[in-house]
Structure formats: C-alpha cells, structure tokens
C-alpha cells in the first residue's frame, strides 16, 4: 500500500492476502483519479444533472419553535435515491468503470446503499449484486423491490444476526472470489484502507455545501452539527468541512436501541472497545474473548457493531463527541418531523433529529443547530406503524 490509512491508531488494512492486491489496485486508482480533471468533471456532472446536487439547507421554523434553538436541516433526503449514499455510489461506480471492472457488488443495511449501487450499476451498464441480511430484507422490503427494478440481484444473507455486519461479511467473501473483474462498492466510511478515506472523499461535499449555505443564510457558522452514525459516512461527510472551525461542536448520534443498559443497542463508540473487524482497527462490540456481538437498532442502517475508524479517532482526540438515542426516541422524532415540517425523515436520520431536539432545550433562539438529514423515511413507514402498534 502507498499509505497506511491510519487515523491515529485506528483504521489501517487488516485483510486476508487474497484481498490485498485488490486493495492496492484500488488505492492507486483512487489516488490518481481523485486528482484527475476528467474524472472529477464527470463525477460532479453526474452529481448535478443526475443526482440533483446541491441539496438545500432548510431552516425548520416549526421544529425550531418548539425546540428552543434554531434548527437547520441539510436535505440529503432530497438527493436522487433518497439518501446521501448516492454521492458515494456514483463516485466509486465511476471509478470502478474507469478501472475496467464489469461488475459491482455491495452490502446494504437500510437498503439505501443497495438502491444507490443499483442506480450506479444501471447508469454505468455494470452488472450489480447486493448482499442484504434476511432481517433487513423484511424490514426494508420496499428498497429490495427498488433494487430489483433497477436490475440488481439481491442475495439474502442468513448467517449471524442476518443484518448489516453479516451482509458485509458476505460481500467481502464474494469479493475475495471475484476480485479480478469485480469492484466491492462499500457503502460506509469503514472497512480496510482505502475505503474510509475514499468514502469520505465522495461524501465530504455534504459539509462543503452546508458550510457555504449556512453562512450565506445566517452570516455565520452554526454552533452545533448533529449527524447519525452507523458506519459513519454521512457524519464524516458533514463533519469534514468543519473540522478546523473550533467553535463548531460536532456530535455523532449512535443507536441506543432498547437502551444502553441492555445488550440490544449499536452504540459502538460509547460502549465498545478496541478491536479488528472488516479489515480495520476501530471500536467494536465484543465479548471478552473477542467474539463480535450482534448490534440492535430499529434502524437497519445503524445496526452495526463497529464504526468507521475516523470517528474512533475524532472521539479520542475530543474533536467530536458521540451520544445515543433509543428506538423509541427515534420513532418519536420521525413522527414529529413529519407532523411539524411535512418531511418524513429516515429512521437513521431521526436519531440525529431526536438528539438535536434534546440538545436545543434551554439553549435559546440564538443558538443554531445544523442537522444532517441523511435520507428520507418512506422506506420506514411500515416499520414505524408496526412499532407504534
């Protein structure tokens, strides 16, 4: 490898030898193409004309009224495909096609990354196969149908907890068997180097736009930025442009599931410990023997027992802090945003909203909170109705 891919002691490349040559090839291609004018022109062209960038920043006046502080939403739910995942899928898809790969494979939890990869596959004329936990195929069924409609083959993963972790295992195993002609389009800022760095590169446009937009609208930087954290791609995409702005507090929100005091959560940064999973050193939820535990969240996209390595680093360095929101609080926020703003947020993003509303209490109307509304929540409707009962 050309670089180590380390963020402090986190990250790196911890992969079987059978994958290492593919990771080296990918790193080399990424380093070259991320500076290549033709690639960047095609990529930004697609983001604008195909995917609908820039997405707006919206002052949510009704939410603000009951919250106390001023709430702003970065509307990634308006991006084509319905979530921030499109930024990354188009970038990596284009890179893979320029590398001469003919096939894309990907994991998906909520199905949003699977949908984004299926879009990229259809657009670029590449064969596409998606690995999805059986549990997630049930709870995000509409996204399975969308992927299939766009020509992707969806494989049900039946091992382990049948969720995101197991889908990543299955995709990595498939990649080991097919590295010569296949690109693994990983959907979050996790996994072996160069994925965390590459996914951040394709997602950092969220924060770059938002920083410009909020300054334009309000004349200054926000006080707080809040984003949900599954593997960490929408959060790192939002945080990166603000890292040097010391006055801006960066807050990631993990899923507390049924409560941090139970074993049924996915709050890896808050409750996990140092470990190695999916090719990286990061925090993981594990037993004292180093066996990885299944996570739990009502939100399939956050249901993951590890996290992108840069978040572990930002937590350790103190630049960002991480909080957790329960299933119940997230569902409450989902309904609240729908009722007050006429926007249905993804259950993932609802975690960020729920925390922002808590944070806002008592802050006063001069305080500004920018939330990354990472995706739209049509996919979660059945799930929420079932939960509410």
């Amino acid at each position: 490898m050309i670089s180590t891919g380390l963020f402090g002691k986190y990250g790196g490349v911890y992969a079987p030898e059978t994958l290492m040559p593919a990771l080296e090839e990918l790193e080399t291609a990424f380093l070259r193409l991320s500076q290549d004018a033709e690639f960047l022109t095609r990529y930004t062209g697609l983001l604008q004309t195909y995917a609908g960038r820039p997405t707006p920043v919206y002052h949510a006046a009704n939410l603000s009224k009951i919250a106390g502080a001023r709430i702003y939403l970065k509307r990634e739910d308006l991006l084509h495909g319905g979530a921030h995942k499109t930024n990354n899928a188009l970038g990596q898809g284009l890179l893979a096609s320029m590398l001469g790969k003919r096939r894309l494979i990907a994991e998906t939890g909520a199905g949003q990354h699977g949908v984004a990869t299926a879009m990229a596959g259809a657009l670029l004329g590449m064969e596409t196969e998606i690995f999805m936990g059986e549990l997630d195929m049930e709870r995000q069924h509409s996204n399975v149908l969308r992927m299939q409609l766009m020509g992707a083959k969806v494989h049900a993963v039946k091992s382990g907890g049948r969720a995101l972790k197991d889908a990543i295992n299955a995709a990595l195993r498939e990649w080991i068997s097919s590295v010569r002609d296949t690109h693994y389009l990983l959907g979050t800022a996790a996994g072996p180097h160069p994925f965390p760095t590459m996914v951040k590169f394709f997602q950092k446009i969220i924060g770059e736009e938002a920083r410009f937009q909020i300054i334009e609208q309000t004349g200054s930087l926000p006080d707080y930025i809040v984003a949900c954290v599954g593997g960490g791609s929408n959060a790192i995409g939002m945080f990166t442009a603000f890292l040097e702005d010391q006055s801006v507090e960066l807050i990631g929100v993990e899923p507390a599931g049924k409560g941090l005091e139970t074993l049924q959560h996915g709050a890896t940064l808050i409750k996990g410990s140092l470990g190695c999973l999916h090719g990286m050193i990061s925090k993981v939820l594990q037993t004292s023997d180093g066996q990885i535990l299944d996570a739990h969240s009502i939100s399939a996209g956050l249901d993951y027992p590890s996290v992108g390595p840069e978040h572990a680093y930002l937590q350790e360095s103190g630049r960002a802090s991480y909080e957790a929101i329960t299933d119940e609080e997230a569902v409450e926020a989902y309904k609240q945003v729908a009722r007050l703003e006429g926007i249905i947020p993804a259950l993932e993003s609802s975690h960020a909203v729920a925390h922002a509303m808590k944070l806002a209490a008592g802050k006063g109307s001069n305080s500004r909170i920018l939330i990354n509304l990472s995706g739209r929540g049509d996919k979660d409707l059945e799930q929420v109705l079932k939960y509410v009962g």
Partner: protein
Amino acid sequence: MSARYNKSFNRLKESGQKAFIPFTLLGFPDRAQCLESVRVMIESGATALELGIAFSDPLADGPVIQQAATRVISSGFTVSDAFELLAEIRALDSDIPIGLLVYYNTVLSRGGEEFFRLAGTAGADGVLIVDLPPEAYLETATICRKFGLASIFIISPLTTEERFKAICNYASGFLYAVSRLGVTGTEDRHDEQLASLIVRARQCSNLPVCVGFGISSPAQAEKMFHAGADGVITGSRIIEILQDHNSRNCHGLATFLTEMIATAKFFPVASCCQ
C-alpha cells in the same frame, strides 16, 4: 517452536515425500471428539497440524468452517479452552509441528504478548493470522520470535512481486499458498496460475510451499503436487467428515486421512514439474 517445522520438512525432503497437513477447529464438534480426531490425524501420519481458533466473523472462510465456528462458540468453548486443549494435543506427540490459525481480533482482545505467550506455552510452533498482512506485522513478528513461533503467511495467485518481498521478509515455517481465489471450502476449481505462483514463491524463499483451499480428495492433492507443491492442507472436507460422523467413531476420518497421506508419501517426486 519453528524448529519442529524445519525438522519435519527436512525429513520429508530427504525421503522424497510430500507433506499432508490436516486442519480442524479446536473444540469441534466438541472438546472430546476434537481431541480424538486429532489423535487419529497424528496416528495416520500427518506431517503437521493446522488448528483454528473459532472466530465469530471468519471472513476468509466458506460456509462449512463458518458453521463449525458458530457451533464451537455457541457451545461455550472459549479461547482459554482452546489453549488447554492445545496443550493436551501437544502431550499426544512431542514432535509434530502445530500451527494455529486465527483472526486478528482474537489476538488483539488478549493483547499480542499474552496471546503468543499462551500459544507458545501450550505447544504451538507457528501462527497464521488470516487478516494481518505484512504491512502491519512488525510488532507481531518481534513477539512471535520471542516465543519461538513461526510466522506463516498466505500467498495468492494475485500476490505481486513487491508483496512477495514483504511476506518473505517475515515468513517462516512454510508458505501457505491458496489454490484459487475465494474462501475456504471443498469446491475444486484451482487457479490456472497456481504453478507459476509456486515458481515465484521459490524465487523469493527457501521455505516449503503447501497448498490449501479446496483440496478435498487424493486426486486434487496429486494435482497440487504436479504443480510443484511441497504439501497440501485440507480443512473443510475434514470438518464435513467430522460433522457427519458425530459418533465417537472416527473411522471415516481415518479412511480419508490414510488415502491422503498415502498420496503424499508415494507421490513420485521425479514426475514433479518443478
């Protein structure tokens, strides 16, 4: 100690034989039957043993070994149990080389120093950490040397010259060549570049080259020997046999091992294309 590997492979070389290395998971299908199956392996004349410690997310393994690992973990068999069983296995035979096959998180969660100390004390001669590439191996190499453990590495048909150099810089015991791209399993579909992989391995190292992944019959073993391999490693097929024969009767295993070992012993070295 890696000395056991050197001794065993030298002896084979002198007598013109090939190596056969059976693999199983420590604690599979349970502690007693595992010990019994390893006894059969030793008595059948295995050159060395490759023993895995079960990990929850074994990403280089196919369904057979995945399911076996899940079974071991859910039976409550711990990493400490694995070391205890390893010590019992070592007590069966003081000469046979024993390699441990692990995933890096199993090492990390104990701390490298403690893990390799326990492995050495229990009687291991080498370790293969599936997901620890040479890029990140420096610290581990020092600790392994300290406890006299060989560092076994995987090489694949896609391994580049640069990577070969980095691997050979640390490797000892033997080189573990994968017969094909893919995960472990009994599927027979070896890569057409296997023979050239073995030639390239010889250019950078004097270590014996043993081929694993998908070697589940004497005919396949013979193909690997023709391609120039010094030995073969069989895992998934053995796990399958142990699954089917869940009585204490290891007869099926003994029959299979005897055939494989006969193939390795009597392979006519003169016909080998190296």
